[in-house]
C-alpha cells in the first residue's frame, strides 16, 4: 500500500521535475511496458505467442483518431473507444485463430495483421498509405499535453500491473497458469482452457489497443506503416523474453534494459537503430539459450528478492486444491 502511494506520488510529481525530452522518453517507456505486460499476459501466462499484436495497437489508435475526429471532442474523452474496439476485434478473430496451436497461431496472427494493414493502406477513408493527423489536435491544451500524456501512461501502467497482480492471485490467474504449464493437467482438474485463453487474449488486445492509442495520440499523427509495424511485436517480445516471461517484474526489468541499451547505443556509441536491434536480438537469443525463463527469475533466486511475486505452487497436485469446484470432478 505504502509502496503504491509512493509510486503514485512519484508519477504525479515527475512532470514538474523532468524536462520535456525526458518526460517524453518516460511516457514511451511506460506505454511500451504496458504493451509488454499485455503480450506477457498472453505468452507468459496463457502460452500463446502472438506475432501480430501490432494489429491491436493499430486498431486502438485508429479508433481513437477516427472517433475523436467524427465527434469533434478532445481525444482524451474518447480513449475508452480504443480498448473496446481492440477487444471486439480480438473476440471475433479468436474463433478461427484458436483452432491453431503454437507457431500456427503465432504466424496466423501475423498474417491477420498484414491483411488488415494492407486494407488500411487501400482505404482512403482512413488516410491510405499517407496516414492521418489527429483532427482534433486544436482542442488539446499544449501547455499540459506532455504532463497529461505522462500521467495517463503512468496511470495505465500502475493500473495494469495492479490488475495483473490481482488477477494472477485469483482463481482465474491460477487456472491460466496451469494452462500454460500443462493443457491436459489443467483440463483434467476442470479448468476451461479455451475460455481462459479467450479472456487473456481479449484483455491483452484491449490493453495494447489503449496503450497504442495513447502512443499515437502523443505523436498527433498515425500512418499504417508505423501502426502495423511488426517491430511492435518484436519490442514486446524482446522485453518479455529478456526480462522474464511469465513474471510481472520481468517486463519491468526488460523495459529498463530495452531503453538503457537504446540510449547507450544510439547516444554515446553513435550507432544506428539497426545495430541497436541487432544488439537487442543477440541479448534475447543468448538469454533464451542460457536462461530460458529470462533474467528476472535468475536474479530473484540469486538475491532472494520478492517484489510482485505471484505465489505459484507446483501446477500438478496444487492446482486441484486451489481451484474451487475442480477437485470434486477429479475424485467424482
Amino acid at each position, binding site marked *: 500500500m505504502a509502496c503504491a502511494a509512493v509510486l503514485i506520488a512519484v508519477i504525479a510529481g515527475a512532470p514538474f521535475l523532468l524536462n520535456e525530452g525526458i518526460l517524453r522518453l518516460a511516457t514511451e517507456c511506460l506505454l511500451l511496458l504496458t504493451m509488454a505486460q499485455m503480450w506477457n499476459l498472453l*505468452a507468459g501466462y496463457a*502460452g500463446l*505467442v502472438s*506475432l501480430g499484436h501490432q494489429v491491436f495497437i493499430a486498431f486502438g489508435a485508429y479508433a481513437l483518431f477516427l472517433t475523436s475526429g467524427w465527434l469533434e471532442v478532445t481525444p482524451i474523452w474518447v480513449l475508452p473507444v480504443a480498448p473496446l474496439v481492440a477487444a471486439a476485434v480480438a473476440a471475433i478473430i479468436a474463433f*478461427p*485463430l484458436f*483452432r*491453431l*496451436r*503454437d*507457431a*500456427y497461431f*503465432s*504466424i*496466423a496472427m*501475423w*498474417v*491477420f495483421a*498484414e*491483411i488488415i494493414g*494492407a*486494407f488500411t493502406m*487501400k482505404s482512403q477513408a482512413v488516410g491510405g498509405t499517407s496516414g492521418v493527423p489527429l483532427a482534433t489536435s486544436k482542442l488539446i491544451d499544449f501547455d499540459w499535453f506532455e504532463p497529461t500524456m505522462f500521467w495517463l501512461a503512468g496511470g495505465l501502467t500502475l493500473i495494469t500491473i495492479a490488475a495483473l497482480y490481482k488477477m494472477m492471485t485469483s482463481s482465474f490467474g491460477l487456472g491460466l497458469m496451469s494452462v500454460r504449464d500443462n493443457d491436459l493437467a489443467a483440463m483434467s482438474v476442470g479448468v476451461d482452457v479455451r475460455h481462459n485463453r479467450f479472456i487473456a487474449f481479449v484483455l491483452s488486445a484491449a490493453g495494447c489497443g489503449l496503450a497504442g492509442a495513447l502512443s499515437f495520440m502523443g505523436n498527433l499523427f498515425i500512418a499504417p506503416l508505423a501502426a502495423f509495424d*511488426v517491430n511492435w511485436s*518484436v519490442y514486446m*517480445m*524482446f522485453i518479455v*523474453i529478456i526480462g522474464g516471461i511469465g513474471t510481472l517484474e520481468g517486463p519491468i526489468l526488460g523495459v529498463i534494459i530495452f531503453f538503457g541499451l537504446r540510449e547507450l547505443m544510439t547516444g554515446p556509441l553513435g550507432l*544506428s537503430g*539497426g*545495430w541497436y*536491434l*541487432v544488439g*537487442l*536480438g*543477440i541479448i*534475447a*537469443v543468448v538469454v*533464451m*539459450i542460457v536462461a*530460458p525463463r529470462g533474467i528476472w527469475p535468475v536474479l530473484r533466486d540469486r538475491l532472494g528478492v520478492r517484489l510482485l511475486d505471484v505465489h505459484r505452487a507446483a501446477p500438478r497436485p496444487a492446482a486441484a486444491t486451489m481451484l474451487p469446484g475442480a477437485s470434486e470432478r477429479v475424485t467424482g
Partner: protein
Amino acid sequence: MIWVETLINGALLGGLYGLLGIGLALVFGVMRVVNIAHGEFMVLSAFCAVLLSNLFPQVSPLLMLIPVIALSFAVGWLYQAAIVNRVVTSPDPLSPLLLTFGVSVILRNVMVEIFGADVRSLQVGELSRASLEIAGLNIGIMPLLTLVLAALLFMALQLVLRHTEFGRIVRATADRRDIVRLSGVKPDRVYNYVMGLSLALGAIGGVLLAVRSSFTPFSGAERLLIAFEVVVLGGLGSFWGALLGGIALGMAQLIGLKIDPNAGLLYAHLLFFIMLLIRPSGLVSSRV
C-alpha cells in the same frame, strides 16, 4: 484469354512458392520447429547471389546458384548446431519459435546495416524477358523453367527421403528422436543435415524469386509468410501438397494483381485466411 494466361502464370509462380515452402515443411516435419528466420535466410542467399554476380559479371547469375546453395547448406548446418539444437528438445514448444524469431530480427537488421535498405534484384538478361507463344498464350520461359525445376527438386527430395538410408534415418528421427539413438544415430547431427538441406532449398527459392521480383532486407517476412501459407494450405508435410498450395497462392496473387495492381500479397493472404476459416481440420499435425 487474358484470365487463362493469368491462371497459367499464377501456376508457374506457384512452383516458386512451393520451393519457398518446402524447406520450412522439411524442418517442421522432422523437428517440429517452425523456423521463423527461414525468410531472412532466403533473402540472405539472394544477397549472396547479387554479390557474387557483381564480382563475376561474365558468369551467368543462375550459375551462382551452385556456390550459394553450398554456402546455405553450411550456414544451415551451423545455425542448427550452434543455436537451434539448444532449444529443440525444450519442454516448452514456444522456445524454438521465440528463438528463431529473435534470429530473424538479428539477420534482418544486419542485412540492413551491411547491404543498405535499397531495392535490389538479380539480372539474368535476355532470359527474364524471353517467352513462348502457345495457342495465343504468352508464357515466360523463366517462370516455366522455375516450375520444372521445382517439380524436379520435389521429386528428388521425395526419392532421397523414401529410398535412401539417409532418408530412412531422417524419417525415423522425426518419428522417435530417442529411439534412433539405439541404432547409433545422433539426432542432433541429423537435424544439422536437415536444416542445411532446408536452407539450401530455401536458397534456390530465394535466388529465383530475386530474379523474378526485387527485394530488400525487409523482404524476409513476406517470404516467410508465403512459405508458411504454402505449407499450411498444402496440408502440412505432404510435398506435393506444398506444390499445390504454392500454385493456389500464386494464382490468388496474380488474380488479385489483375483486379488491383497495388494489392501485393493481400489476395494470397486472404486466400490463406479464408481456408483457415473453412478448412481448419488437418491444419495442425502431420509428418513428412
